[in-house]
C-alpha cells in the first residue's frame, strides 16, 4: 500500500519503510538531495522518469510500488502511465478499443492510409511510428466535460472513427511545419 494524501507524503512513507535517506534517493534518481527534499514536501513534482528510478530503488529494498501508485496513490487515476524504459508522458495505457471488430479494422485501415499520406509527404519511420501510436492512443478517445474538474465518458465507435480525422491534424500540421522549417534552413 502506498499510503499518503500527496506524492510527497507517499514518498516519505515509503522511504521510511525502506530505510532510505534523501541522498540515497538522490543518487538513484540522479538529482540533488535538496531536490528529493522538495519532492517530499510537495514543493516540486518529480517527473515519471524520476519516479520510475525511485520505484526501482524501492524494489531493490523489497518494496513493490509503481509510478502510478506513487503519483496518485493505490486507488489513483490511471493517468500518465510510464513504465521504466519508456518515454515519460508519451502515451497512455493502451491502444483505443472498439466495440466492434469492423470498426477496429476501419480504424486501423484509416491510420494506415494516413501513415501513407505522411510518408508521401516525407515523414520518416520514427515519425510514422509516433503518428500511428498518437492516432490510436486510448487517452485521446474519451470525451470530457467541465475542464480540470470535469468528468469523462466513453465515445461510440463511430465517434472514435471520426475523431481519428481530428487527431490527424496534429501529425499533419507538425509535418508541414518541419518541412517549412527545413526549407528555411
Amino acid at each position: 500500500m502506498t499510503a499518503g494524501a500527496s506524492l510527497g507524503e507517499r514518498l516519505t512513507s515509503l522511504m521510511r519503510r525502506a530505510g532510505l535517506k534523501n541522498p540515497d534517493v538522490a543518487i538513484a534518481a540522479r538529482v540533488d538531495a535538496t531536490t528529493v527534499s522538495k519532492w517530499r514536501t510537495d514543493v516540486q513534482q518529480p517527473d515519471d522518469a524520476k519516479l520510475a528510478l525511485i520505484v526501482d530503488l524501492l524494489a531493490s529494498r523489497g518494496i513493490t510500488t509503481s509510478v502510478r501508485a506513487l503519483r496518485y496513490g493505490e486507488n489513483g487515476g490511471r493517468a500518465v502511465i510510464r513504465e521504466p524504459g519508456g518515454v515519460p508522458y508519451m502515451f497512455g495505457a493502451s491502444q483505443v478499443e472498439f466495440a466492434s471488430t469492423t470498426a477496429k479494422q476501419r480504424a486501423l485501415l484509416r491510420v494506415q492510409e494516413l501513415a501513407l499520406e505522411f510518408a508521401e509527404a516525407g515523414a520518416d519511420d520514427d515519425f510514422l511510428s509516433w503518428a500511428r501510436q498518437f492516432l490510436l492512443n486510448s487517452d485521446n478517445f474519451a470525451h470530457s466535460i467541465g475542464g480540470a474538474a470535469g468528468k469523462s465518458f466513453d465515445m461510440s465507435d463511430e465517434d472514435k472513427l471520426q475523431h481519428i480525422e481530428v487527431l490527424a491534424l496534429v501529425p499533419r500540421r507538425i509535418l508541414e511545419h518541419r518541412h517549412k522549417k527545413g526549407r528555411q534552413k
Partner: protein
Amino acid sequence: MNRIAATREQQLDRIVAAKRRTHRELRRPLDWAGFKAVCEREEVLVELAPLDREAMLAGYGGVWMILINSNEHPRRHTYRGAHELGHLWAHVDQGPLGRYEACYHMSVEWPDDPREDEAEFIAMRLLAGPARK
C-alpha cells in the same frame, strides 16, 4: 483548484515573469490575438478543431501544437490555449527532454493530476495580466 505549495506558486510566477519579458502581449491581460502572437513567437502551432475535450497539447521532434475545441464558445478559446501554454512552460520545458519530449498530454483522469492545477494557475495569471501597472 487544489492546493499548490506557495514555493511552487513562486516558481510558476517566475516562469510567467520570464515569459512577460519575452512577450509583450503578456504584459496586459491575454486575448486571442496576443495568444496567437505568443504561440507564433514560441513556434507553437495552434489549431481549432472539433475535439473531444477542451484542448490538448501534443508534440513531436521539438514541434508543439495546441489544439482547441472549436465547438466551445470563442470566448473560452484564449483561456484553453493559455492553460496548454501553462503545461508547455511549466512541465514540458522543465522536463528532462524539454520540447524534445516525444508527446505530452494528460490522460482522461486529469482532475487528479497536480500539474493540471499548475497549468490553471498559469492560465489565470496570463488572463488576468500583471498584478502591478
